[in-house]
């Protein structure tokens, strides 16, 4: 054990406490901290306006797409199908790319609850209307695509597994597989979710719907391959298997 100070007595004069430096160091530390916080808030604001921009862009693209579809319907002219198909695929790619990033912010709780709800709801509505449009265009123009609705929730441990398998096939089939993820956490706020859910009688998650057929629970790699290949016509990715 430590023996007591052999010399005892008062504190020697050379034992100084640089109190001023302790305080200044504390002040500087907090200044840096608050500067960082402020910078964070400013950038967060910027981030939000960037998300808004993405949304507006998406909106214009959607309107254009909708108009194209209406136009095709009115004049029953199949020649313009190619344009519709390209625009549809491009827009959906944009949607999944830009908005999935937006979603990842929410997961890391980097934007406020209110903003989060609005952005998420927006994302689901976009997904649903693109899905509808994809289904309709597919029929009208005989597009060789597979629209998949994917119902999931945040508190579902096996959902990320389904997500992994879906993005795996997205990598293989590219534009031909269109995945529309619907987060069921938001069904309280968005009535459209309930409508789609009751149409397919979705009771558990993960659930995917392909060609009006419902698949409950995680669909594994092999099964997913056969589902996609049944729906697609003469895809080279399927024939090679």
């Amino acid at each position, binding site marked *: *054990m*430590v023996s007591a*100070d*052999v*010399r005892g007595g008062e*504190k*020697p004069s*050379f*034992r*100084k*406490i*640089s109190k001023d*430096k*302790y305080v*200044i*160091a*504390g002040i*500087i*530390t907090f200044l*840096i*901290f608050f*500067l*960082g*916080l402020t*910078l*964070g808030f400013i*950038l967060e604001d*910027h*981030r939000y306006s*960037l998300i808004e921009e*993405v949304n507006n862009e998406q909106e214009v693209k959607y309107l254009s797409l909708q108009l194209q579809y209406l136009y095709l319907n009115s004049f029953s002219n199949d020649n313009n199908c190619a344009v519709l198909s390209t625009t549809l695929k491009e827009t959906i790619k944009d949607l999944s790319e*830009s908005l999935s*990033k937006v979603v*990842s*912010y929410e997961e*890391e709780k980097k934007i406020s609850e209110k903003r989060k709800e609005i952005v998420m709801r927006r994302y689901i509505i976009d997904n649903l209307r693109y899905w509808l449009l994809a289904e309709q265009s597919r029929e009208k123009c005989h597009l060789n695509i597979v629209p998949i609705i994917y119902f999931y929730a945040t508190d579902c441990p096996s959902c*990320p*597994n389904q997500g*992994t*398998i879906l993005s*795996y096939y997205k*990598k*293989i089939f*590219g534009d031909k597989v269109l995945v529309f993820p619907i987060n069921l956490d938001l069904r309280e706020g968005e009535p459209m979710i309930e409508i789609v859910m009751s149409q397919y009688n979705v009771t558990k998650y993960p659930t995917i719907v392909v060609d009006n057929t419902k698949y409950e629970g995680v669909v*594994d*790699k092999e099964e997913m391959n056969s589902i996609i290949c049944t729906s697609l016509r003469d895809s080279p990715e399927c024939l090679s298997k």
Partner: protein
Amino acid sequence: MNIVVDMIIWVAYLVSLYFSVFLILVYVDYKDLFKKEMSETSIPLEPFISVIIPAYNEEKNIRKTIDSALSLDYPSDKIEIIVVNHGSTDNTGKIIESYGTRVRALYLTRTSTDRKATAMNKALKIAGGDFFACLDADSFVHPLTLRKMLALYYKENDPELAIVTPAMKVAEPKNLLQKVQWLEYLVIILIARVTSRMDSLYVAPGPFSLYRTEIIRKLGGFDEQNITEDQEIAYRIQLHHYKIKHCFDGYVYTTAPDEMKAFYLQRRRWYLGSIMCLYQYKSLVANKRYGDFGMMQMTKSTVGFILSVVGVLIVAYLLLLPFFTELKNLFLVHFNILPYLMNYEFKITFLNFLQADFRKGFIILFLFTIGAYLFQQAHRNANEKMTRFGIIPLIPYFAYYYLIKSIILLLSMIEFSRGKKVRW
């Protein structure tokens, strides 16, 4: 991210930032003085000096070590070299004999519980010097170092000054590991110089610390139970309010481990010793009677240990968690990664950039800046070029050297807690 982990990371960053800012404040305060400061080599008196070289199976280095002690710039009738052959089983004994009467040879048998401190205490009993230095058998002292250290004793003119510590450099670094340690030692020299100004030194390095014989004898010599007696003696000196000063340009060259296993064993001994000393002298932590040493240094050492461990755990959490997620994902697709590779897209958008955590990033940036600044100043302080060994050693030094050290520290702490349980 988990809110608890997030909070811990925040606290860890802020505490690290506080200590770094404090160090910089003290440094900036003395910067001008440091620029002008020069060590004297002329001394008013030439007291009798004992240089103790403890050796256990050191046939490789002992000759060079003894030669460096013999070539110290000091009158030969005022200095004695005591070489302790501590039960060597190799040719160390023969080499010592070859020096004849130029050195005092002391032969000791070695028992399993013997440490360097045992040899030091035996030598201290027969040492005739007013001051004595310990020179580890893997270290070589610069000829002028003894004079510079003595000059510091006379300059301070304080009978309570008990130890003057040297500026340690790595001797002839050859491989990358040694070169990285070379960089580390230079930074330690600067930090020791700053710490010395606050009378807060807590280690008297084995290679050529110069002790005032009378005080060390009064305190009962070195602790033979301690695995890092050079730290324990410094803490004991501080406990009794004696002083330790650093001689910033009194150079000693020490052989650094050249491979990972030896490095690991050395560091584990150091860290385990540090933890034990800190535990032994815990009453000094945040103790006002000990001034900056108690309030700042001891607190910093304690918190530093915790921070290092927290750091390792956080890095493990941040790296391992995604690793396992990826592994699970690969399992789901039956390890068929071809589609990922073939359709790999690497795109960085402004949105990606905004995704970064700026609030923490800002603090990390500051910490890194402080580290880089100290690194640059340390080189200037030791009169060395940063690129003396090229740029390559800088990469591991900044990227992961401290992480490796922290991992060894974590392992040492585990060892310590297990050892304590056994003793209880």
